[in-house]
Every structure is written in structure tokens, then in C-alpha cells.
């Protein structure tokens, strides 16, 4: 399933719930927790930063390969070209005093999902995340 949200300002929660209610989603809570977290971080990234003034659209969708049980979540926007995977991972060995506030969102996606890929195509940012699930 797939839907284009426009506008997206203040719509994070609606977009996250749309994806979490997809029939492709697994039912077990630990996996749903990881998916919700990854989706929230990825959606927030677009809603907050992709468009100047927050005016723009975000198309989101899920698909499930019935044989391999690999779930794919895709986000597409026409905002400023931005590859979130370019950012260095935070140094998780630093002390509380040394740790910077922030920079954890995409890092969490990387940890919670099996794969995460970015491409820029036809003027769109496309972020694709996959995770093997149990149905």
C-alpha cells in the first residue's frame, strides 16, 4: 500500500499510524516496536527538514515479499536532496558530558532495520528500509 501525504507539516503521527496499520506489518510487538521506531525517525527527518517552511509532500508505502517475508518501507519526497546515511554514526562510547544532543535518529533506523538505502532519483529523495519479519 502507498499514499502521498500533502501537506505534511504536523502530520508525523498520522503518517506513522498509516504505515503501522498496513496489512504488511507483522503482529509481534517486539518487531512492531522496532518498525515503529525506524518509521518515526525516518518520517520525522522528512517532516522537519526536507522542505523549507515545511511545505511539501511525502509519499510512503509498504510491501511484503510473501516468499522471503521481507518487509519494505519506502519514503519518497521532493525536498532538498539529502542522504541521511552520509552522516557519521554517533560515538556511543563518550561520557554524558561529552555526548552531543541529537544525531541518533538515523542511527537507530540502521540498528533496528536489516537494510537501509538512499537514492536520489527524478528530483526525489527515496529512502528504502527492509526487515525480515515473522507472519
Amino acid at each position, binding site marked *: 500500500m502507498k499514499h502521498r501525504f500533502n501537506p505534511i507539516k504536523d502530520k*508525523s503521527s498520522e503518517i506513522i499510524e498509516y504505515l503501522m496499520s498496513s496489512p504488511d506489518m507483522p503482529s509481534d510487538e*517486539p518487531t512492531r516496536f522496532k518498525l515503529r*521506531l525506524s518509521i518515526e525517525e525516518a518520517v520525522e527527518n522528512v517532516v522537519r527538514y526536507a522542505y523549507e517552511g515545511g511545505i511539501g509532500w511525502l509519499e510512503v508505502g509498504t510491501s511484503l515479499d510473501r516468499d522471503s517475508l521481507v518487509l519494505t518501507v519506502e519514503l519518497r519526497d521532493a525536498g532538498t536532496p539529502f542522504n541521511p546515511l552520509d552522516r557519521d554514526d554517533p560515538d*556511543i562510547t563518550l561520557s*554524558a558530558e561529552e*555526548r552531543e*544532543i541529537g544525531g*541518533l535518529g538515523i*542511527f*537507530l533506523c540502521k540498528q533496528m532495520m536489516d537494510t537501509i538505502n538512499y537514492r536520489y532519483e527524478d528530483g526525489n529523495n527515496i529512502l528504502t528500509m527492509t526487515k525480515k519479519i515473522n507472519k
Partner: protein
Amino acid sequence: MDITIKNEGEKTLVTLDGRLDTTNADQFQSDIQPLLDLQKPDIDIDCTNMTYTSSQGLRIFLSLQKSVLARGGKMVLHNMNPQVKEVFDITGFSNIIAIR
């Protein structure tokens, strides 16, 4: 996310209930303001019913911890559920915030 804060002697007891996410992180930030005003913080946070946190929640816990340490105080998070604990583990927050 519901939050209750009460004082018991020198200690401040905080109870969290619900999901801490992008929809309520700003509210949570202002709800914990009393904790940022304590002279010598000794804070126990009961996380039994905190069912979820995203990076929005983590950043607030980190800024709270920084502020507590800067005032020579301490803060301990109790009874975290395993999935929330995993988020703290993965991000290294378990090493910089006391969890029991």
C-alpha cells in the same frame, strides 16, 4: 505520556506512563522542568509503564542527565521494559545513565 513528580524527603520520585514520541516530546520537556530546577537532584524515575521512546525522548533524557551531573546530583531509571532498554543499550545510553 503521563508524568507524575513527587518529593519524598531528599528524593524526587518520577513515574512515567505511556509512549514518549514525536507527538509529546515537547510536552515532556516542559513537564520535567521542575527536575531541572532542583538544587541537588536525587531523582528516581519509574519506567515500568513507559512503553516506547524514540530519539526525541532520548535527547531529553540526555539533557536531563547532563543537567543533573552539572549540579552534582544523581538520577536512576528503574524497571525499564526490555524493548526500551534495548534502545538505551544500542545508543550507549545505558553507559551514561544509571538503569536498575
